[in-house]
């Protein structure tokens, strides 16, 4: 219990004094995870929607694979991305290993299946509701996808937030591909792992509370923004 109090106290002082290292790694955490979220959403939202409305022979298999990919162990993703981006790997010439870009790539791979799968679930329901109308109006496939994405944006936001939550709390993959380099690739989660390793539980826990507060703040911010737009209809 004393450790937890010490952690709360450490978090309090870190935030109150606006510790410059804390601000830096917090912003980097946000930068990496939000960028990963944008790219993952650009892939997963249309793909999940497409999967909900398109009938093709291996659809069930594709959905099963997608759901399985949701459980991808981040460490394995990290290792594979590491081997691909290593100077001795196929994409070594780009020199991306141990940069925020590498961390973003790993996170995109981890959260895309999650977002696509939640999107698919939500879009399938909406599609069942809209199906007859959109068919009757002789819509093109593109128009259908755009309509479903627009009208299902609340569910898609939930999917995206789930992806963000997974990304910002992830440590295994970004530790391997980012290297936890101070002032370059250190983020909240890798800093927590580092401080735990040093036995400084109070600081580790303090950073942990900052991470939780950050995730909460982002969720509340996004929900309140969308609520203003939607006039409290949600």
């Amino acid at each position: 219990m004393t450790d937890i109090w010490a952690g709360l106290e450490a978090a309090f002082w870190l935030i109150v004094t606006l510790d410059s290292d804390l601000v830096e790694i917090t912003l980097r955490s946000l930068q990496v995870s939000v960028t990963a979220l944008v790219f993952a959403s650009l892939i997963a939202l249309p793909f999940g929607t497409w999967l909900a409305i398109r009938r093709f022979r291996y659809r069930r298999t594709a959905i099963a694979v997608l759901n399985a990919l949701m459980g991808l162990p981040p460490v394995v993703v990290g290792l594979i991305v590491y081997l691909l981006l290593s100077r001795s790997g196929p994409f070594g010439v780009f020199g991306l290993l141990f940069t925020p870009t590498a961390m973003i790539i790993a996170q995109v791979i981890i959260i895309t299946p999650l977002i696509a799968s939640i999107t698919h679930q939500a879009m399938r329901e909406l599609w069942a509701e809209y199906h007859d109308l959109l068919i009757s109006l002789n819509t093109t496939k593109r128009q259908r996808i755009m309509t479903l994405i627009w009208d299902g944006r609340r569910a898609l936001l939930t999917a995206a937030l789930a992806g963000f939550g997974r990304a910002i709390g992830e440590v295994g993959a970004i530790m391997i591909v980012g290297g936890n380099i101070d002032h370059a690739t250190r983020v909240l989660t890798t800093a927590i792992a580092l401080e735990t390793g040093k036995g400084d539980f109070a600081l580790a826990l303090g950073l942990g509370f900052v991470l939780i507060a950050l995730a909460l703040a982002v969720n509340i911010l996004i929900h309140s923004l969308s609520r203003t737009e939607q006039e409290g209809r949600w």
Partner: protein
Amino acid sequence: MSLALSKGVVKRRGKVILGPVDLALNAPDITIILGPNGAGKTTLLRVLHGVERLSSGALTLSKPDAQARQEQAYVFQSPIMLRRTVRANLAYPLELIGTAKPVIAQRVETWAERIGLADALDRHAPRLSGGEKQKLALARALIREPDVLFLDEPCANLDGRSTREIETLLKDAHLRGTQIIMTTHDLGQARRMASDVVFLLGGKVHERGAAGRFFVTPETPEAQAFLNGDIIE
């Protein structure tokens, strides 16, 4: 537009649920499709609209298919509301075909006025009452000024007042040149609206004729029984 179905058959899981049907429909009729439950009314309507595929037989339209589909509209028994405002629901079919924004705005105003929802343009459509929803669905179907309008029991769940409003809108549309093909359970509505009747039984056209004659002197005993309100299979 004229629609002609020749030897049209629809099977589901190997079972024939419609046909074979030979049927020609022409403007400017108001065709009412009558028949007991399970006679295939909705299936026939969907086949004519082109959203239900024929297992065999052919549907011939007097216009090229793509154009014909653009000039048809369909109103479902339980209205499908886009999760948007009334305004956005009305604008949607026009946006799909790339109508200019000022034209859309003007037509939306006009139709909102006609269905009495001018003050509700910014309300969320799924929150309207049943009657309002069906009127909105009808306006949304008519906003492209279609050649042909299909309606599947549009007044099945509505009270008398809403039913009368819908019928007035349909007659107006018909006067403006829209051919109407609808199913109904309501014999009173059929009598008020129809110029042409198709009586379906067991997936086949059992009797066909002008409304004036059909309602007075039906040719088949089953049609007679149906008009008398007897239960027929």
